[in-house]
């Protein structure tokens, strides 16, 4: 098992390096650069004279060729110093440290909500397959999942903030302010959670050992829990893993609408301002999170399912 984990860690490093390098050169290829962005913010877009841009380039040594900048940046990364953000003029790590807990809190609440609704619904529609509950739950969750996130967010704001005044419309001030963004994010995930849970449960219910359990005349509850649910557990783990991966990338929209200061809006802001160090910091963190969660899911999966032995890679 250890050999497998070490191998996966090596792969993760490779993926991290590849993704960050691709982003680095991709951002540099795009038109416009950090200096124009800084000047634009400074002068409100009135004049963009070259001499001013030259000074900025020199200050952030942007005038050096790309690969030189890249290597300096890479050396920094090994020392865990992601450099200074052009736009916020502060170490990238501090900003990310400030923003990460917000996204984490939002994301995990959303996953919790989608699991809280998705798992029972999935189990129920598997138990009563092809009957009314099964069809309605599938169509309902599919519909909720098909509504574009930003539209459902807006509708939720109008109903729950403006009309019912239960929650603030944006920002992070009060405790209640996490509810609407989390629900919007969760709506997008409920469809997948229910569907995966249902298919996982259906596969298990069809197995021979379920018939044997019935033949043993054991209690219906323990049959459902210790046999059916226990076998469907690994598929729940994969669902949760997938969802968490989805948050890291997908929360940009929700964070923009609800002015939720998370990694998503920071990433989006960094791209439009060509703030490469900040962008790289976010990308590395998101990729690291995504791959780490995948590894965690596989390890938990192997721990749950005795049949899975990681001898070969």
């Amino acid at each position: 098992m250890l050999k497998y984990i070490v191998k996966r860690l090596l792969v993760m490093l490779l993926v991290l390096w590849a993704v960050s390098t691709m982003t680095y050169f991709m951002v540099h290829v795009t038109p416009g650069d950090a200096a124009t962005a800084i000047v634009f913010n400074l002068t409100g877009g009135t004049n963009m004279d070259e001499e001013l841009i030259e000074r900025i380039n020199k200050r952030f040594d942007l005038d050096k060729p790309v690969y030189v900048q890249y290597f300096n940046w890479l050396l920094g990364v090994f020392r865990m110093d992601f450099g200074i953000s052009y736009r916020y003029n502060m170490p990238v790590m501090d900003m990310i440290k400030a923003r990460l807990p917000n996204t984490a809190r939002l994301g995990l609440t959303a996953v919790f909500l989608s699991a809280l609704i998705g798992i029972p619904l999935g189990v129920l529609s598997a138990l009563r397959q092809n009957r009314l509950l099964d069809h309605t739950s599938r169509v309902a969750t599919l519909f909720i999942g098909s509504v574009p996130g930003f539209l459902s967010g807006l509708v939720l704001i109008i109903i729950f903030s403006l009309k019912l005044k239960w929650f603030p419309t944006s920002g992070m001030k009060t405790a209640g302010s996490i509810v609407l963004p989390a629900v919007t994010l969760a709506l997008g995930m409920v469809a997948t959670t229910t569907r995966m849970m249902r298919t996982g449960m259906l596969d298990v219910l069809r197995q021979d050992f379920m018939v044997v359990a019935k033949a043993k005349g054991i209690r219906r509850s323990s049959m459902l829990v210790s046999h059916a649910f226990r076998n469907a557990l690994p598929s729940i783990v994969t669902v949760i893993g997938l969802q968490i991966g989805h948050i890291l990338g997908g929360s940009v929209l929700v964070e923009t609408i609800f002015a939720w200061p998370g990694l998503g809006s920071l990433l989006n802001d960094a791209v439009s301002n060509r703030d490469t160090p900040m962008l790289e910091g976010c990308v590395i963190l998101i990729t690291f999170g995504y791959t780490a969660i995948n590894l965690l899911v596989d390890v938990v999966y192997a721990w749950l399912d005795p049949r899975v032995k990681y001898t070969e890679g």
Partner: protein
Amino acid sequence: MEPVLRIDDLCVGFHVRDRVVNIINHVSLHIGENEVLGLIGETGCGKSVTGSAVLRLLPDNAVVAGQIDYRGKALLPMSEHEFNRLRGAKIVSVPQSPSTSLNPMMTVGMQVEECLTRRPDYSKKAQQVPVRERVQQIFERLRLNERGKIFRKYPCELSGGMCQRVLISMGAITNADLIVVDEPTKAVDWILRAGVVDVLRKMKEDYRCAMMMITHDIGVARALSNRIAVMYAGEIVETGTAGQVLDHPQHPYTADLISALPENGFHVTEGFMPSFEEMPAACRYQDRCAHCVEACRSGKPEMHETEPGHFVYCHRCRGE
């Protein structure tokens, strides 16, 4: 004395698309105290369905008619809750493919222990011997327990043969009255096959339980059963003691079957069993039977007792 199991005029059909296809056609048989009934028949003749009907494990789209009595008590009208008190305690099943019949996520010991502890009518105090103790004893007796480590092993870590012994121990632990064993030697190696027969013979002697042995392997039936019933296309064609049926078979199908054994020179009977959707009227073996006469195509063959305890459903035997 009431037989352990009596099946009278059992009919089983399945709802497929929009009509019912009948599989079991007026089957009657009985199993006495501590008696092994071998139910022989080829793939698709409905022997497994009969076994499942007794244990009421048929899928939802099944239609069951007729009478199944366990020690005089009718099983079919019982409610699910009521029948559950018998199923798993008094009437137990040993399923066909052992490797997929065990819960992969639970240890083997737990799954056997569950047969007692997880039943609605279980009370911890009433146990003279702690349950874990009994499980170890049973593993011991079935030669499963190399150094007592079997309890915490998972099914995937055991071979097919060992899995089967675990399933058998599930029946033994509740000292069941009737065990329905389904195809114990299907696709099992030669030496292992001998091992399975030994275990089942031991089971019969130690636990004095009645057994319904469903198999297509005539050798196993000969070795274990007291009485044998031969099934073809959903009907019983011949029943009698093992010796009667196997040494001097009366029904043409039984005769052809025995002569098809490799050691008897694998004599070939042409054709194959008709599908249940287009079943011929009257005798269902008419197309393949060498002695087929006009009567076989028109009237339903009645039961004749050619010698005490040896019954045959065939027109030809009316004469002797």
